[in-house]
């Protein structure tokens, strides 16, 4: 009963809050006022329902927390389906092969000679998967909140556009160059600011991205200003002319390859000395340096490596769209990539891939959703932090093999 009463209060409060903004709209041109009272009713009903559910969830979370603190090994009890999947090497390999095969044949399944819309959509989505994986290194693994990640993407895209247009350099030459330029910018920017505390770092990276965009917009002799750069050559296939569909499919395989590469590299690093140092830095900076980890070098490597992927995939973006302008590199894009990492679970590779695909494909196929896309992203970021800060997919703890250690000890021990 108290729940109902409180929810009612909350509903009334939100009806009050949204009263001017949602109900009234002043049309300054025709000098008319539009009253939209139905919105108020809508807000009331939704707020009541959400408030009710909210209280219920908070209550459940509290009881869960209490349970956890009473329990020494809560993780041992209920493995999630992802943990079960990972624990079973045969099954996980089969799933991996199936997904890989599906990804390989995907462009041929969904495209015809004239219609390759779905392939193009998937290329854009995969580009964001790589971006998500790159930012996952910086934010997810090393805990450096970068709000200007999109700037490195812009660096890669403009590197290719300029090199290809001015010097006629090919896609394959520019691809690594774009990545290196991204990493270089990462190092140059990172060097002075990495000693800043986490929240300052966030603001400075945001400032850096804004500066980058302003420079791109205004320095029109080099970067083409707000109009951008058009007629950027598509990826070349050993000099063979490709049709529209072939080009799309070809680009699809290139990005797919980059995704695979990014997954491989991130997994390797995550399970290495380097990746552990990143995670330790994320968990506790002071303890980390006190254990002998060089903070500057570790942070810089995470920052530069994250930037590398953005630069690399920026080249593909420019080549795929064959037109770029500063509007593709706004704060909202940075925020969207961050939302992917948050939603997927900080540091979780599989989670980030799924989140990136979902966040990029949903607005594309659910037109109704597209309009509310950023609204939902914002809400998702808040709700995730409150209810599932570890992300939708738990970052699984890695188990190491230490049989050898045990055997040696038994031999030499007693």
């Amino acid at each position, binding site marked *: 009963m108290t729940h109902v009463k409180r929810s009612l209060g909350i509903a009334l*409060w939100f009806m*009050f*809050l*949204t009263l*001017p*903004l*949602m109900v*009234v*709209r*002043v049309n*300054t041109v025709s*000098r*008319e*006022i539009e009253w939209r009272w139905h*919105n108020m009713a809508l807000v009331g009903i939704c707020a009541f329902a959400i408030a009710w559910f909210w209280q219920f969830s*908070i209550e459940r979370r509290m009881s869960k927390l209490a349970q956890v603190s009473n329990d020494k090994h809560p993780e041992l009890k209920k493995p999630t389906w992802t943990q079960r999947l990972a624990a079973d090497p045969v099954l996980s390999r089969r799933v991996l092969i199936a997904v890989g095969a599906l990804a390989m044949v995907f462009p041929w399944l969904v495209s015809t000679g004239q219609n390759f819309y779905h392939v193009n959509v998937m290329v854009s989505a995969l580009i964001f998967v790589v971006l998500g994986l790159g930012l996952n290194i910086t934010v997810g693994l090393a*805990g450096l*909140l970068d*709000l200007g990640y999109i700037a490195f993407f812009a660096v890669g895209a403009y590197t290719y556009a300029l090199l290809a247009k001015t010097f006629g350099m090919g896609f394959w030459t520019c691809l690594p160059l774009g990545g290196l330029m991204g990493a270089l910018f990462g190092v140059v920017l990172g060097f*002075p*600011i990495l000693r*800043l*505390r*986490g*929240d*300052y770092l*966030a*603001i*400075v990276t*945001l*400032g*850096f991205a*804004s*500066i980058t965009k*302003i*420079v791109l*917009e*205004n320095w029109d002799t080099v970067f083409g200003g707000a109009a951008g750069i058009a007629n950027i050559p598509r990826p070349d296939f050993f000099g063979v002319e490709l049709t529209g569909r072939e080009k799309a499919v070809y680009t699809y395989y290139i990005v797919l390859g980059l995704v695979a590469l990014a997954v491989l590299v991130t997994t390797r690093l995550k399970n290495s000395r380097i990746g552990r140092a990143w995670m330790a830095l994320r968990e506790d900076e*002071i303890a980390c340096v006190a254990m002998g980890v060089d903070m500057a070098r570790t942070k810089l490597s995470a920052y530069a490596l994250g930037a590398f992927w953005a630069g690399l995939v920026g080249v593909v973006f420019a080549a795929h769209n064959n037109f770029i302008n500063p509007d593709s590199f706004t*704060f*909202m894009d940075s*925020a969207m990539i*961050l*939302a992917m990492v*948050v939603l997927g679970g900080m540091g979780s590779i599989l989670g980030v891939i799924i989140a990136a695909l979902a966040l990029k494909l949903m607005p594309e196929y659910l037109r109704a959703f597209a*309009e*509310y896309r*950023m*609204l939902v*992203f*914002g*809400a*998702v*970021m*808040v*709700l*995730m*932090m*409150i209810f599932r*800060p570890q992300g939708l997919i738990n970052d699984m703890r890695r188990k190491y093999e230490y049989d050898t250690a045990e055997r040696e000890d038994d031999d030499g021990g007693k």
Partner: protein
Amino acid sequence: MDFEYLFELLCGGVVKGSIYALIALGYTMVYGIIQLINFAHGEIYMVGAFVALIITGILTLSGYSDSGLSVLVLAAVIAVIYAAAYGYTLEKIAYRPLRNAPRLSPLISAIGASIFLMNYVQLVQTPDFLPFPELVPEFEFMEPLSRFVSSVDMVILVVTALTMVALTVLIKYTKIGKAMRATQQDMVMARLVGINVDRVISATFIIGSVLAAIAGVLIASRTGQINSAIGFMAGIKAFTAAVLGGIGNIPGAVLGAMVLGIAETFGAGYISSAYEDVFAFGLLVLILILRPAGLLGKAVKQKV
């Protein structure tokens, strides 16, 4: 050297700075107490401006009143109430459940809240710029000054000054002000001596939002147009000002805002107006690298 131009820029900078100061105070007060960059603070400012626009629209179009100043005051009062309500709700939903979470969590939540509010206003109102009515009547004041400062600017300066005085009195002499200072010093200790820390934090958000809404109304009447994205840039600029002065430090925020406002207008006036924002961010990066504690801040050692 054209002194008239220089003085005009200086006046413009001070006016701009005082707007930044009003917003920056909200950042610095919240940061001082819960060490959170309230990313959505700029959005509260934007909401304030929108509410004021809607109220003036209703009042003028329904023919209730046509005396500009009274409409402005009424609109400002309602805008302030709404901004306070939004600030209070924001803290309660997006930050309070994360009080003991890792440092990055509330920050990400704040970014989410900012994006949410920006798009909420864009969806329920319009993504386009809306003209904000000219409500401040032209009036006469000191002759040499009026050549450089418009009457709107004059109102901005006076209102800002009055607000600052009120804030100082509030923080120095009232009970809630003392509780705020105590909480800023040591939250655990404040709680132990019986201060309701949750209420202090709510009060801080409300005060910050009130200041932001005042800034929103003022800037809207100066620039004459608003849209749902104005909060973002203004928020970051104000945060820059707060950092510049030393975050958590109230006089510092005002000083930082003035420095920022003047630096921006001078940069725009003498170098290039297209790069106005670059000067602000450049200043932020420089200050963080050279003097992370800010102009008036004290370097604090992290407790180990």
